[in-house]
């Protein structure tokens, strides 16, 4: 299995879509899709994410790997597949900033790891809260780039509290990487330094929520 993970990871790092797809196709007949995702795809993506943090891999490799995995996983586990982990209901958004890369990476990584979630794209506080209520979102992932946008999460938290919503908030983005207390200050339930951390953080929160 280690060799397969290594080969798959190399294919991703080289942005070799065809090889990545072939490796998955070769295993889909002998492994259950969920097991294949967890043992190969998630492991490879996590390693690439850690490698980005220590400077071994480039952000562009993290992004392209996520996109490729998302495509590959969609073929073996379509969006509507009952094996997709879509409960409790989750959504992701960018708060205020015109910077979608962080969000896109997290979204791809979660989908490539077998989760299903809604994408609210770029939203402001009130719009976001309305959609959380309408869609009965239990876990909300928020990505920001600017410090003022991070501080706006305080407002989101306050509205959730005032209206008795128990939606959990996971935050990420540059300001949180530069101030390790900021996530608690804005009232988030968890923070991720990298996109690949999101998979385990979401797993943990899912257990709390369900």
């Amino acid at each position, binding site marked *: 299995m280690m060799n397969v993970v290594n080969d798959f990871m190399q294919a991703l790092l080289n*942005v070799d879509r065809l090889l990545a797809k072939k490796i998955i196709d070769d295993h889909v007949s002998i492994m259950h899709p969920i097991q294949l995702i967890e043992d190969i795809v998630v492991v490879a993506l996590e390693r690439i994410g850690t490698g980005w943090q220590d*400077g*071994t*891999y*480039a*952000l*562009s*490799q993290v*992004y*392209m790997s996520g996109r490729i995995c998302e495509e590959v996983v969609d073929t073996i586990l379509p969006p509507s597949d009952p094996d997709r982990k879509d409960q409790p209901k989750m959504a992701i958004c960018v708060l205020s*900033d*015109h*910077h*979608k*890369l962080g969000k*896109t990476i997290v979204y791809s990584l979660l989908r490539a790891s077998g989760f299903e979630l809604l994408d609210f794209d770029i939203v402001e506080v009130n719009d976001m809260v309305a959609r959380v209520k309408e869609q009965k979102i239990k876990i909300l992932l928020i990505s920001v780039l*600017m*410090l*003022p*946008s991070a*501080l706006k999460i305080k407002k989101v938290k306050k509205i959730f509290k005032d209206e008795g919503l128990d939606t959990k908030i996971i935050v990420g983005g540059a*300001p949180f990487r*530069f*101030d390790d*207390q*900021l996530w608690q*200050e804005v009232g988030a339930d968890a923070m991720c330094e990298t996109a690949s951390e999101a998979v385990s953080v979401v797993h943990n929160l899912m257990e709390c929520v369900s």
Partner: protein
Amino acid sequence: MIKNQMTSLQRVMATLGHNEADRVPFFLLATMHGAKELGMSIKEYFSKPENVVEGQLKLRAKYRHDCIYNFYYAPIEIEAWGGEVIYSDDGPPNSGAPFIRSFDDIKKLQAPLIDEVPCLKKVLKSTQILKEKIGDDAPIIGVVMSPFSLPIMQMGFDKYIELMYEAPDLFNILITINEEFCIRWANAQLKAGATAICYFDPVSSTTISTKEMYLKTGFKIAKRTIGRIDGPTATHMASGRCLPIVENLIQTGTAVLGVSWQEDVRQLKTVCQNKISVLGNLNGVEMRRWTPEKAEEEVKKAISKAGSGGGFILSDNHGEIPFQVPDDVLMAISEAVHKWGQYPLHWLSDYRQTR
């Protein structure tokens, strides 16, 4: 020269020559705080060059730092290309939806001519007035986005990465256009009176690119571009990391390197010693909730690690102080540099022993 009578410019020049001046130079790279000084909104402040002039002069009188920072905001370059800028009451203006919407748009792209664009003329105007007022007392720092980093705002980061992998020819076309623009923009600012140009290039940092990628792209671009800028440059990583590529950054011909709080400034200083000056590296985002005591401690720490032998300018690590950072913290930083930055740094040996 009597050491404690140095002007800011003399102090900075001595440091860049890798000598100890009278004290460690201090660059307070504050932009929006000028609006606070003038009691106006950020949008109004940046609407007139006279405001920026007054704001910068007031800030320098208050915090006694060693430069004038004629930087408005990064997306002003996007405005120049006809793109959208979104203002905010409590933060820097941001670029809106990208104006390059498909790869094909690159084929039709033309760089704006500097003297035909009102927003850039505004910047040149404040440079001129500042130069008249400041003369040779302090360096005036102008700013450009590197041709390699600008595309994030021109087309969005995700599409830019896809362009690099999927359409390298168009990537090269875009970079060529951006290089011409960047050189023209930098030289116009120098001509208007800027002393040096800060070349913002975080996409080259190892936070975003690997060394291997950098050598093929950002490095070559910087070497070509900086080579054609008619004055000294400082390359700023905008808080991205750069330790593995310092040697290459030096080869681009830049004189100063703006570095991140995420790397050890002692280690950076060691690799840069006598080759390139280090600018940094206080954490601006965290600064928002510092106390004056914490600010003093952080200044001491940075000077103790990088101050010896000159070649070091104290500043934040991003090239812009967030609007939320309180004045008393900025004041404490200034007082600390004036107190602990005096050369020779006699207090260092005792300080190091207690750590």
